[in-house]
């Protein structure tokens, strides 16, 4: 029942998984 390394909630000092913020939304179509 003990999660192995790399699993579970990030501990103190560890960043949450990065969410891609860019590029932004496409308003019409991609050229």
């Amino acid at each position, binding site marked *: 029942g003990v999660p192995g390394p790399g699993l579970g909630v990030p501990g103190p000092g560890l960043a949450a998984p990065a969410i891609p*913020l*860019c*590029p932004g939304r*496409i308003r019409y*179509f991609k*050229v």
Partner: protein
Amino acid sequence: AWSAPPPPPPPPPVRDPNCDDPDVEQAALAAVQYVNSNHRHGYKYTLNQIDKVRVYQRRPLGEVYVLEMDLLETTCHVLDPTPLKNCIVRQVIEHAVEGDCDVSVLKLDNQFVVSNAKCESSPDSAEDVRKVCPNCALLVPLNDTKVLHAVDAALAAFNAQNHSSYFKLLEISRAQIAPLQSSVYVEFVVVPTDCAPKDMADPAACNLLADQYGFCKATLTEKDGGEDVAASCTVFGAAPGPQPDGAGSTVGPTVAAGPTEAARPVVATGPPVVAGPARPPVF
């Protein structure tokens, strides 16, 4: 002993906000407006996508938004007073043109002021157009001899329609030729002059009327050894004078008329040239 509280920590010198953040979008829209008001040829562009953004603190006040953004060409010429929000984006089948811009925008007192912009435009690839439309016309250079001929023919036909002014060519804005090359599609800008078309002997002596523009679309088709030309122009600006048919040149549709004698060399056969509706003055 009393001591002052420690000063607040300085803001981080750099941040990377979301590309769809409202402030980032406002900075991008300010940049689009700047780009459109600083080029005098071709068409207005509209925002398609914000690719990257980084925000720097500016001392003593403000922030600088450094953006990379993609724009798309619309059907509104930059001299066309139509608001950008009412302009239609060119579709892929029209051989769309994209603009890539690097811009810097200062945000100060909630105002966005563009400090610099550098853009490059490029057409979509012919392969991309052919994927969705194998027989669609593709963009060609504006100095192509077929393009120049099509514009000359269309303008001559337009001038032969007894407008109150003789119109001069200002620029050729767009040109496409279909794969089979039997027709040439052109878009160009014309300006009325102080010359009457009937009395016009020397075009070089005619002076352009200020702040009046006509935006023309024409197709020249080779047919049975001759040529058909169909052209329509939308004219913005003050009325140069009443039309011979009694209708003002700024109200109602201009009556479609067949080619006159002067137009015959360029309008060999086919349907009459049609002059598009003239809109009310906007300047």
